[in-house]
């Protein structure tokens, strides 16, 4: 009896400590995120131009949304983007981290170098790449034509390449970011594990797939999830580089959402879009969660 009670208080103590640890973040989350989020959720049932009083329209915004061809196209583009960009980005940054996760001379120098693009403001990077990619006077087409006598390619003006070109830019911009997360995780692996593996005569590929990847799985999961979330929120790049064009080929959900919220003054509609987007990302997260849980256990 006594033992049980003692155990209970220990448990309770732990719970109280935990709540104290998360208290301020939680309060901040509720006031600064959930209160606005709930307001926006309610706004999704209204028509609101930000200036006049909102008028209640029920589920009209949602009905319009699923018939809105631009939204559906933007959704398709975003999914296309996720499928193209997320694996490219995760693999590149993991490879970079693997490359630097060893005792190299000048390791710090290379890390800094790889991280440089991350530091550049996204507006500046977008402007830089608009210019590099320019069909007529961009340096990329210039180099390609000098080296391979290629005809100029409309990297961001041709619907065939535009999304891909932006993805390449994003990989360049963000690879260093996720590399750092992987690097921190890889450096956290206990060295004795490597020693034991070396003694057992484990091959490098076994080391990678049987030891390194499973051990840094939480970080891989983190990077994949944040990459998906970022993909759904990509806005500045599109705004500066293509304004959604040509046609609707680079409209993404968040670009269309922004346009509706502030340019078209349809805040209610934009909020409905955010709700749908939220449901989709949440579903992806839960699925990812399930798969990852299994993998981590294995």
């Amino acid at each position, binding site marked *: 009896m006594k033992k049980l009670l003692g155990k209970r208080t220990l448990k309770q103590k732990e719970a109280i400590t935990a709540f104290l640890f998360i208290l301020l973040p939680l309060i901040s989350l509720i006031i600064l995120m959930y209160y606005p989020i709930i307001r926006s959720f309610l706004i999704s049932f209204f028509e609101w131009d930000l200036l006049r009083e909102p008028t209640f329209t029920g589920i009209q915004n949602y009905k319009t949304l699923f018939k809105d061809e631009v939204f559906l196209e933007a959704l398709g583009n975003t999914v296309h983007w996720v499928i193209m960009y997320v694996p490219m980005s995760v693999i590149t940054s993991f490879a970079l981290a693997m490359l630097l996760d060893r005792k190299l001379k000048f390791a710090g120098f290379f890390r800094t170098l790889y991280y440089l693009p991350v530091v550049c403001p996204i507006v500046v990077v977008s402007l830089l790449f608009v210019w590099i990619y320019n069909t*007529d006077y961009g340096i990329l087409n210039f180099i390609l034509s000098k080296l391979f006598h290629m005809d100029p390619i409309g990297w*961001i003006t041709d619907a065939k390449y535009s999304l891909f070109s932006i993805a390449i830019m994003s990989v360049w911009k963000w690879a260093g970011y996720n590399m750092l997360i992987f690097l921190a995780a890889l450096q956290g692996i206990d060295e004795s594990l490597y020693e034991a593996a070396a003694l057992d005569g484990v091959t490098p590929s076994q080391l990678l797939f049987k030891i390194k990847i499973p051990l840094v799985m939480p970080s891989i999961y983190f990077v994949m999830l944040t990459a998906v979330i970022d993909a759904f929120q990509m806005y500045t790049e599109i705004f500066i580089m293509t304004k959604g064009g*040509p046609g609707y080929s680079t409209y993404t959900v968040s670009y269309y959402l922004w346009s509706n919220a502030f340019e078209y003054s349809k805040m209610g509609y934009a909020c409905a879009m955010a709700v749908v987007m939220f449901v989709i990302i949440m579903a992806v997260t839960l699925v990812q969660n399930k798969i990852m849980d299994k993998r981590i256990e294995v």
Partner: protein
Amino acid sequence: MKKNLKKTLALVMAATLVAASFAACGSKEKEEGGDKPTVSKENTNWEGAEKAAELEGKLTYMHSGDDYEREMYANVFKSYMEYAPNVEVEQMYVPSDYDTKLKTLAAAGNLPDLFWSGEAGIRAYNEAGMLSDLTGYLEEYPQLTEGILDGVLDFGNFDGKQVAFPKDWTSYVMYLNLDMFKEAGVEVPTNDWTIDEYKDLAAKLTKKSGDRVDVYGTAINNYRADWVNWMGNYGAEWFKDGKSNISSPEALQGLKLMSDLIEAGSAPSPGSVSSTGESEDRLFIIGKVAMYPSGRWVIPSFRSEVDFEWDAREMPQGTTRTCPFICSMVCIADTSENKDAAANLLSYQMSDEGLALVMESALSLPAYSDLMENENYVNTPPSADAFINSSKYLGNASQLEASKTGKWSEYSSIITAHLSDAFEGKISIEEAVEKIDEQANSTVFN
């Protein structure tokens, strides 16, 4: 290695700081010198001077633009405060995302006393009752409307109430690379040239080596000024009775000119970013385009960067002529506690003296016919004729109607999207205009 890198960085940092402080001194000198018109209260012709001396209070003036414009308006406010020593003007300069900020402030009921808004954005603020009626002030300050260009007030006039005032305007003209005309042995067009002559010239000035185009005869922008201009020059009623009417034959004819030029290889296909005109500006500057349509705003960068002879002509005429209206309008918030002072400041900004401080930069044009003829306000190069002439046919009925629906930005993004498909050759221009009308009339103007 690491240590060296750190040292280098520290050095660079230090050098930056030193350089920055030197440069700060330099810019001050510039301000003191110069031949800017000086303020003199005794012999001013500004009608509001007397009243200004009596006014007091604090005004906030919010505007956008780049750092040059910030400096320009800082000067306007500084000289205004010499007339109105008891009025404190606080300049709220917004370097980016101006419309987002303006809407956020409006939603919070926190609008500044005076602020800018694009010509198509005013209706929403007016309907929400956020704008002061300036009609009374136009009577109090007759100079505000004396000799004002025909039609420019219409964009800020709702139900007979003037709720926004055009601070300036920017014409739309054709810039010419004169060296290329000389090289090709082609005569430089005069202001009365026609669209057919323009097409011919564009083809003649295009230089190809094999399949590759070295120099394009002309360029187009997938931008509202180009649309309004080409459609309007064929007398199109492209927006009519609250509906998009871009598939009407005249409108199609105007837009088809744009796609024909691309198809003929006389103009490059415009990037979708050319909604800002930016990338196409560059083509003219680096000598890859011989004739380039744009607004007055390109002149400062053309003057400093172009290294050939250049000039401007009116846009070529079709069956008629029109000039798109692109402008920021000044509004006074209804919540302002110092409306009289705000109107007084507006009247100063629009006075000959206030405009002199702004027009020197050649970013825009004065909205008054007498100042249009004055070379202190419309300075050269390029020659002023094209700008002066275009002020006589400024404004387009369809643009006015479409702007005042309050749904212009949504409408224009539909036009941009389908036209860019047409310019890329994905669909024909005939299909594009059909799609625009169908989508706009079913989703925006339903």
